[in-house]
């Protein structure tokens, strides 16, 4: 029996953190090779600034994928774009900044909830729903903005995305850290987190245990929407502009980060810590590309490759451990 224990321990730890550590090392080497000046303190601060937004999206993605049943969110980036535009439009129509931002949060939550509704109640596969809303939401962002960037925010708004607090970027200290802690708490200590993992591990058994599977999964999508809203506020503050084409690369990157962080694509396994670490890795990679003046398209391509290699690697590792288990 102890062999089995050792094996499953190995599998989960190796999978979840080994991959990350390998990635981190690779990225550091890559950075050192391609852009040696990149890892200065100032640059690390900039990285942190940029990483907050995608980091929040990745947390949401983690929740949705954890819930299993084919759950996935392909439209987080589009939600991000649509929400920023709508906030800007509200400001244009003389809504004060604070209420506009709050409304924005609610709208983003509603957008995520729509996904959840279609997936849980109408039982349409998540891939299709979020693929559809990916285009629908970004299309609407273009519609409401008439295709142009909207720089309508008051200067006071800039602090969120451009200010600093206690020497750290404002959004990092005030938003990312607290949210990360809350997310960590939710997934490890709260009933919702336990139930999410149970649902993702064995949907039938969860039902037999009296858990309302649909309600659990719906809340994951709703929460993700809220996170998109928060990221929208932060990003539009950072650029002092609401851009309708925002988040185009975030859809894939969020999934990539979640999976790299050890979230098992079929549900039931994943940690916030892992996702946070993976966010750091990907953000660092992205920054290095930017520093070396490589277009973001190339960066996205690399992330795509990394994602595939990571999952391919996961499968290989599982097969390897299974084979070794048979031999013992």
């Amino acid at each position, binding site marked *: 029996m102890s062999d089995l224990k050792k094996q499953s321990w190995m599998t989960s730890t190796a999978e979840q953190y080994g991959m990350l550590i390998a990635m981190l090392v690779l990225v550091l080497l890559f950075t050192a090779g391609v852009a040696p000046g990149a890892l200065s303190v100032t640059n690390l601060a900039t990285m942190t600034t940029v990483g907050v937004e995608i980091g929040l999206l990745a947390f949401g993605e983690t929740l949705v994928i954890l819930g299993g049943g084919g759950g996935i969110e392909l439209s987080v980036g589009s939600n991000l774009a649509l929400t920023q535009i709508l906030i800007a439009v509200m400001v244009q129509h003389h809504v004060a900044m604070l209420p506009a931002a709050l409304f924005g949060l609610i709208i983003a939550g509603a957008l995520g909830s729509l996904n959840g509704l279609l997936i849980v109640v109408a039982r349409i596969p998540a891939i299709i729903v979020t693929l559809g809303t990916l285009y629908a939401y970004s299309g609407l962002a273009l519609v409401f903005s008439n295709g142009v960037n909207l720089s309508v925010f008051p200067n006071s708004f800039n602090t969120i995305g451009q200010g600093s607090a206690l020497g750290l970027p404002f959004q990092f200290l005030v938003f990312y850290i607290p949210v990360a802690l809350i997310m960590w708490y939710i997934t490890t200590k*709260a009933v919702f987190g336990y139930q999410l993992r149970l649902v993702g591990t064995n949907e039938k058994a*969860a039902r037999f245990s*009296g858990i309302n599977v649909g309600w659990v999964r719906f809340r994951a999508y709703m929460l993700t929407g809220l996170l998109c809203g928060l990221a929208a506020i932060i990003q539009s503050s950072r650029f002092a502009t609401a851009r309708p084409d925002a988040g185009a690369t975030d859809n894939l990157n969020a999934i990539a980060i979640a999976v790299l962080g050890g979230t098992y694509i079929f549900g039931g396994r994943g940690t916030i810590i892992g996702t946070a670490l993976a966010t750091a890795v990907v953000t660092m990679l992205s920054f290095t590309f930017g520093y070396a003046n490589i277009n973001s398209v190339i960066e996205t391509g690399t992330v795509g490759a990394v994602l595939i290699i990571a999952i391919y690697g996961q499968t290989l590792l599982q097969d390897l451990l299974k084979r070794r288990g048979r031999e013992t």
Partner: protein
Amino acid sequence: MSDQVQIIELKEIYRAFGGTQALSDVSFDIKTGEVHALIGENGAGKSTLIKIITGVLQPDSGEIFVDRKPVVISNPLEARNLGFAAVYQEPLIYPYLSVMENMFVANPPLKKSGSVDRHEMRRQIAPIFSQLEIPHSLLEMHASELRLGDQQLVLIAAALLQNARLVIFDEPTSILSASETERLFRIIKFLRESGKGVAYISHRLEELEGLADRVTVLTDGHVVGEFDASKGLDIDGLYRLIAGVAMREYTHREEHRVAADTGSESEVVLEVSGLSNPPLYSDLSWSVHRGEVLGFYGQVGSGRSEMAMAVYGLLPAQRGAIRLEGRDISPASASHAIRRGIGYLPEDRKSQGIFGWLSIRENLISVILPKLTAFIGHVLKKKTINLTEDYRRTLKIKIASTNDPILSLSGGHQQKVMLGRWLAEDLKVLILDEPTRGIDVGTKREFHRFIRETADQGLSVVVISSDLPEVLAVSDVINVMRKGRLVATFRNDGNVRPEDVVKHALAAGE
């Protein structure tokens, strides 16, 4: 018949699963032109034997001879090539393909151009369909549109198409109407006359009269008798045999539970009347009193689990009433039922019960989670740990730490964890569905002891089981279900004859 030839012979087959021995020293053979029936209760090992013949499973030891030559049947394809075909209750495998295509998917006849030759398919199938009295219009329908009885016929047709020489029927009549059953028997006799060998697995002894040439009785993985049935069948004798052997198999004799003689009538806790959900079950009315153990005995497919799930809120009935402590309830979800004090342990531990790679603790608290919290859903770790320690002690689970993955436990211990889920809940009724399936004898007895003790403390327990000694060991009252109906009730007062119980569960007819 002197010109009968042996098709397949299995000799001294042993096969175990985890801790349980499914087959021990089983020998079985089938000849051409005969119908050899294999009878026994659920769990007797019939399906395992069939799976070995069809190449799905391998025996641990023993030999198989086909045409008197030793063979190894390592996969279903090989079984098919040897001419063995099985007719299961499962639906046809390709739901959105036409019936005709379903039959020819692997090896369609081709035209010279290499295209699929549908005409040729029809030409080959037509005579078979006619022989089996199947309407040809079925050919173009999607497989999923067929009634179960028709799907079965198509499977038979497919077997004939493959030129099978051994056709295996596994509990075929459980899904058929009376007229469909008659049609099936005509077809089986036709198969016999055509020189095919037929293996007929069933637990309905009455059906075999006039149908079977030989009958082999399987109980608890052992062959307990082989009889020539061509001249008639002593059905009562068979029932006695099955019941008796089942009872004798218990190496440590458990005492039958003798129903407590409660002076004053203890109150009715759960009452079900007229509960119906056709075709799963109909018109069920029963009740269980406080501190009573109510056993439901019957074979798989008799509707017991579905009935339990109606009480538990997962599969609401179409008609009928459920009353808990006198009040009408209609649980629409499991959490409703749980809140009212009804608990349910599902029968399939692997797919419905455990959370594979999660820890023992996480498995234990899956039900009680909402009650472990303080304010915004915070799960109190201390409470959880105390709870799990309580469980550990109560259920005597031997583990190092509750953080270990649940799969590191034996089947019996896993089942204890399943049971543990309900210990802290404030239950009025606990329904256990096949609680000791696939578990070693020692743990079985612990479970039975636990059931009796909990009932004595005031809980009402409903035990669904296909294990006769188990039902007799724990129940105060035994309800027998067959084909979705409640056919008999016995008070377990020490005078119950096991063969009577078995008879009601297995008999065909109606």
